[in-house]
């Protein structure tokens, strides 16, 4: 019996946040089971639910999916957010992978040892302002369309907009010189499903705070 997808992760952003964004943007309701203790993780491992002993894991369509990229690929395909052909998919993949590279640094940042945080933040700011944001601004400028690929919303737009919000939390003026990125963010944020997700009370997770970091240390130790 098809039920809602169930997300298994700790109660924080980590590697699951892009999955939440994509499901939400696609208008898919989902449930979450939060790992709170080491036993929760052990239980999932012992009952064979985690192919490579790792989370994220998403129960969907009778399957237990692992590997964040595989999960995102499946959701994007299923909900028509992956372009119309193999060439569009290549561009979407390339753009999404770039976002994922920076997003990984951003999502991991709260969990870093205190002594490494300053350097990590400097790297994030530098990469965002000098490598990634210029690249996407240039893509948008090159075709002057409303979305990154194929003149319609794809997972690349959703994950890029997610990244813009996350980077801005760490570097408030990061978007200052990127008008087309700002316009994309506004446009995507105004889509009904995304607008709803951006409101308080949604399943969007706040910045992983000290309590969350402590809790994940315990679960994954």
């Amino acid at each position, binding site marked *: 019996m098809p039920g809602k997808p169930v997300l298994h992760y700790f109660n924080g952003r980590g590697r699951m946040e892009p999955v939440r964004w994509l499901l939400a943007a696609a208008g898919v309701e989902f449930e979450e089971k939060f790992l709170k203790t080491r036993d929760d993780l052990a239980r999932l491992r012992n009952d064979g639910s985690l*192919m490579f002993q790792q989370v994220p894991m998403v129960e969907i369509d009778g399957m237990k999916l692992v590997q964040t990229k595989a999960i995102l690929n*499946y959701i994007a395909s299923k909900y028509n957010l992956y372009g119309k052909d193999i060439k569009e998919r290549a561009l979407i*993949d*390339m753009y999404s992978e770039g976002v994922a590279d920076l997003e990984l640094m951003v999502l991991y940042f709260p969990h870093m040892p205190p002594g490494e945080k300053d350097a990590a933040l400097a790297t994030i700011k530098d990469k965002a302002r000098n490598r990634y944001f210029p690249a996407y601004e240039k893509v948008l400028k090159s075709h002057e369309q409303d979305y990154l690929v194929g003149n319609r919303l794809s997972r690349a737009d959703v994950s890029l907009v997610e990244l813009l919000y996350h980077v801005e939390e760490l570097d408030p003026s990061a978007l200052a010189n990127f008008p087309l990125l700002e316009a994309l963010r506004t446009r995507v944020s105004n889509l009904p499903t995304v607008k709803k997700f951006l409101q308080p009370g949604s399943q969007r997770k706040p910045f992983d705070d000290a309590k969350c970091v402590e809790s994940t240390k315990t679960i994954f130790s």
Partner: protein
Amino acid sequence: METKPKLYYFHGRGRMESIRWLLAAAGVEFEEEFLETREQYEKLQKDGRLLFDQVPLVEIDGMPLTQSRAILSYLAAKYNLYGKDLKERLRIDMYADGTLDLMLMIAQAPFKPPKEKEESYALVVKRAKTRYFPVFEKILKDHGEDFLVGNQLSWADIQLLEAILMVEELSAPVLSDFPLLQAFKTRISNIPTIKKFLQPGSQRKPPPDAHYVEVVRNVLNF
């Protein structure tokens, strides 16, 4: 007439090797330009073909593609190595991503200080034996078929063979507890295109040595 894909990378495995494997297995001839100097790299950047100023770069079908995983997915789809439907593609993605995680650990190890490098290699072997290989052994056992997904060759099989051979370079007896993987290794290695790629003189690259590490450090300036 289709021009051959062209690969831009260092003369070594790194993040390009899986792409070479996939092209070779698909029987696709490709050209390579090897980065040896910082000037070459800066020229590629100035030419605007590196979206995020990074290699690997593969020019194929009129597109300058970067991001190795995007390139691999494109090639898998183009050359019918991505299963027959969404659910098969999903399984191929999960298996390929798992093996890519393992191979990335191997690719990054040479750039670490000697002690950490040895620890990385030891962890790779441990992960292979306890986390990854048991999964694939079970998959093969459960369906009894020759290939990981859908009873036909896919990207996942090619990726797994590459990973097996790389881990065997670190620890020759690593497959000793996995009889089905041993048979798998022989079977996939004997596919004509792959057999050819495994022979000396092919475009397959050797394991990284000190010279390779030095070139990469110079070109990428780290």
